[in-house]
């Protein structure tokens, strides 16, 4: 391989290299610098550099396959990377003060977020199942540690351990699926699998089907689709809240990125088969998420079930099986990030020394003393419900539109009916804040970085709700390219 070509290929993974390097620098910096703010700022700066690199790499209108077909740079992966970058920045913004309150403000925290995200980026760009697996493990291992970062809290340890064991289990499923697929097709390259399926005429082969199911199971675990969602409520509750916010977006988006790529590019010919699995999964996921959330009294658990339900809605776009369908899923992810991280930012602002602020009852009468924060939470709750003019409506509208367009009428009706069920528990928060009297005085923790995150998420939820055109065009052009 000549030097110029080698350099060219290295440029393609410049964003990933940047994040890894910044992560390593953060680890070193932690030894020298006492103030965690510095580390956070360097982390954000590094993310912005990576964002700039991705922006510069946007110039190619053809997908770039590099490293012997292992890694692909296309609009699809670039858009997911955009989600990941924003997710890092928002997570760091909501973490700063919070991790100090939790007395777990370690420099590694920020490095691990960057490492986890690098894993996600490799997943989004994976053109080969091996790279996909590596990326997934890098992401998973980093998030296991992050989930257990509050070392003195048993529930945080429990979360990490649970996540680790079940995660390892799901990784095994993934490897099994990859092995079966490799055994049948003789390749691990995502595109070549599709070719092999046709040329060997094994589209209807049950072993290929089994391999695909195993991979769906593994991805479903990361996305928290029912019935592979059992870990989510416990881990979401036990993990530091900022990491819960991070996990509810990042790994979910990465899971959808690989699910979309593998199903569309490798198993595109088997759409009927994967839909026979995904349709029941989507229905169960939406139902389980919406119904069990009704019974929750801890807001983090409630948001965990809500995120399960949202994963079900996002799945509708994949089930549609068209480029438009995939676009609707990715669009939903971007919108979901803003409203969900925003909601978690409010949850974080209730946490202070000696007060968890995670029970629904802590929200009683919040509007009296803290009208602004309550109003923001109201916006997020209505957005999660999918009421216009918030962005949540645009997300739901698009996936339901694609479900109808692909002829899954019943799925669309089931989805909207469960969104009414889910309205009840989102409304309950609004009801607690606005219609009940406060039990005890709640003082809020606020910091400029948290306020920044709240401002950005609220603004995006409203702007994308009223003027969705820009985002829609961006997603469309990214996925078409």
């Amino acid at each position, binding site marked *: 391989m000549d030097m110029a070509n080698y350099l060219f290929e290295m440029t393609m993974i410049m964003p990933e290299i940047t994040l890894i390097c910044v992560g390593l620098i953060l680890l070193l910096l932690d030894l020298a610098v006492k103030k965690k703010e510095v580390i956070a700022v360097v982390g954000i700066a590094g993310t912005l550099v990576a964002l700039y690199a991705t922006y510069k790499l946007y110039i190619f209108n053809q997908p770039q396959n590099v490293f012997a077909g292992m890694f692909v740079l296309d609009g699809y992966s670039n858009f997911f990377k955009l989600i990941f970058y924003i997710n890092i920045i928002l997570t760091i913004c909501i973490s700063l003060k919070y991790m100090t309150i939790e007395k777990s403000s370690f420099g590694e925290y920020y490095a691990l977020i960057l490492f986890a995200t690098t894993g996600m980026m490799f997943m989004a760009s994976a053109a080969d199942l091996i790279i996909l697996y590596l990326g997934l493990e890098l992401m998973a291992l980093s998030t296991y540690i992050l989930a257990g970062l509050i070392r003195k809290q048993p529930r945080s340890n429990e979360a990490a351990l649970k996540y680790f064991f079940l995660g390892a289990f799901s990784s095994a499923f993934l490897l099994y699926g990859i092995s079966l697929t490799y055994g049948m097709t003789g390749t691990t390259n995502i595109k070549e699998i599709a070719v092999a399926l046709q040329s060997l005429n094994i589209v209807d082969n049950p072993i290929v089907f089994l391999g695909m199911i195993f991979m769906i199971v593994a991805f479903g675990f990361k996305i928290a689709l029912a019935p592979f969602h059992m870990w989510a409520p416990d881990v979401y509750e036990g993990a530091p809240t900022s990491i819960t916010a991070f996990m509810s977006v990042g790994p979910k988006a990465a899971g959808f990125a690989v699910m979309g790529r593998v199903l569309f590019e490798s198993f595109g010919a088997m759409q009927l088969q994967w839909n026979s699995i995904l349709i029941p999964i989507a229905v169960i996921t939406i139902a389980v998420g919406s119904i069990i959330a009704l019974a929750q009294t801890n807001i983090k658990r409630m948001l965990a079930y809500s995120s399960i339900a949202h994963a079900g809605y996002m799945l509708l776009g994949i089930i549609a099986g068209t480029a438009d369908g995939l676009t609707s899923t990715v669009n939903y992810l971007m919108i979901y990030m803003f409203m969900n991280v925003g909601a978690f930012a409010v949850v974080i602002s209730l946490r202070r020394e000696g007060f968890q602020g995670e029970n629904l009852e802590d929200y009683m009468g919040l*509007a*009296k003393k803290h*009208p602004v924060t309550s109003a923001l939470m*109201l916006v997020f709750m*209505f957005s999660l419900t999918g*009421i*216009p*003019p918030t962005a949540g*409506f645009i997300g739901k*509208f698009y996936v*339901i*539109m694609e479900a*109808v*367009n692909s002829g899954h*009428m019943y799925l*669309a*009706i089931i989805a*909207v*009916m469960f*969104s*009414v069920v889910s*309205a*009840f528990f989102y*409304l309950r928060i*609004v*009801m607690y804040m*606005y*219609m009940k009297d406060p039990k005890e005085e709640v003082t809020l923790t606020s910091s400029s970085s948290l306020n920044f995150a709240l401002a950005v998420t609220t603004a995006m939820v409203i702007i994308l709700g009223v003027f*969705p*055109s820009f985002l*829609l*065009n961006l997603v*469309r052009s990214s996925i078409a390219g």
Partner: protein
Amino acid sequence: MENVILNQLNYPVLSYTVFLPVLGALLLLFMRNTAMIRWTTLLVTMATFVISLPLLTNFDKTTYKMQFVERHQWIPSWSINYFIGVDGISVLFVFLTTLLSILCVLVSWKAIENKVKEFHIAILTVEAAMTGVFISLDFFLFYIFWEAMLIPMFLLIGVWGGPNRVYAAIKFFLYTLVGSVLMLVGIIVLYFAGGNTLDILTLGTVHYPVKLQFWLFLAFFAAFAVKVPMFPVHTWLPDAHTEAPTAGSVILAGVLIKMGAYGFLRFSMPMFPDAVRFFMTPMLVLSVIGIVYGALVCLAQKDLKRLIAYSSVSHMGYVTLGIFALNSQGMEGGILQMLNHGIITGALFLMIGIIYERTHTRVIADYGGFATLVPWYAGLFIILTFASIGLPGTNGFIGEFLVLFGAFKAQKLFGVLAATGVILGAGYMLWLYQRVFFETPNPNWGPGHHPLWDLDLREVITLAPLFALIFVIGFYPEVFLSYMHPTVENLLKHINTHAFAGEGLIAKHLMEIF
């Protein structure tokens, strides 16, 4: 664009009407002083009313076409436009909305002392959303306004309402949402069936297969029937009306529940003419049940507000009866009855709110002999009672007469049954009046006990416009009827020419469905 008349005024009158309240609400965010908040809101609602007046004065009454139309690209990838305009039906409801909003601010002047800023923001946003619903000519825009309205309304009931407010607010929200999301699926189906557009006027010219019309009618029925509310999905209304603060009740009764009937007129009729024909009899049956059942339940009520709430079920039954009679008298009567109900019931809720501020009770048995205690109040209340019953000379008479006339023309039996509602209506309203204002005075009230005072100037100003309208429409209904003639005529022509001729063909298509 040949079927619309672009806005001829040199400013975007409809956009101003919708967005001025939004602007006002944003302005309120930065205010602290409650008096300033009240005055600003009042000025904003009055300015909105004044701005919307040219819609009535400059309206071309000779055409059914959409007027004052504005159209801008909004979401090109789904071919969605910011497309607004009014015709002879919607222009009346824009007028009603902007008028009632002023009264809502006035009546809340003293009643609302808690979270004043949030209250007025909610009033202004709900005004904007309601106006938006009536003027939207793009389904997406319509749905946004239709749903966005739920948020401030939910808060209005739940935060400033009566003792059982939270239950009522959530019930209201969930009922409405179930209907709305089914309509959303219907809208999406229409989008693909009508050639990837959400333009309401274009979608109204497409002839959809009967089977599709059948299902879409049901999907839209879910949304509109809940809003109207029609029997048997009316049960949210008594709770919401009763628990809402006075301003909330006025908005609910005055404008919000009109949107259901408006939806039937704007969407179901032009888009699904065959299904409308097919469902005509079931709709008439439900309407008559609503009329009689609502009236009977009124007789059993012990709570003042709840009684008026159930009377709304009865009165809205006339509206749907008239509309689905599918003739010009019935339809015009139905539309006029919508306006009348907004005026009369709006005024009734204002009156009840006014007396509640003094007595702090809504139980009818706590009243009695009020004619001597508050004579002016009693005098105005009897006018409302007569208007609600439909005495000639009041607007109620014109509306009910036209509706019953239309119903007789369509199917005699329904006309006869519906007419019994008029008798029952006289029964419960007059009995209510007797219990509250005559009979032996309740010893709790009067000098030396709980002080009562008659109407003050603010309250008279609040009520005056509605009383004026009662008599204007009562003596010269053409003032408002003249707006709707061409629109109603065109709509009926559309249904008659587009619907598949002959019942046999519909029956054949229905065989395929089942």
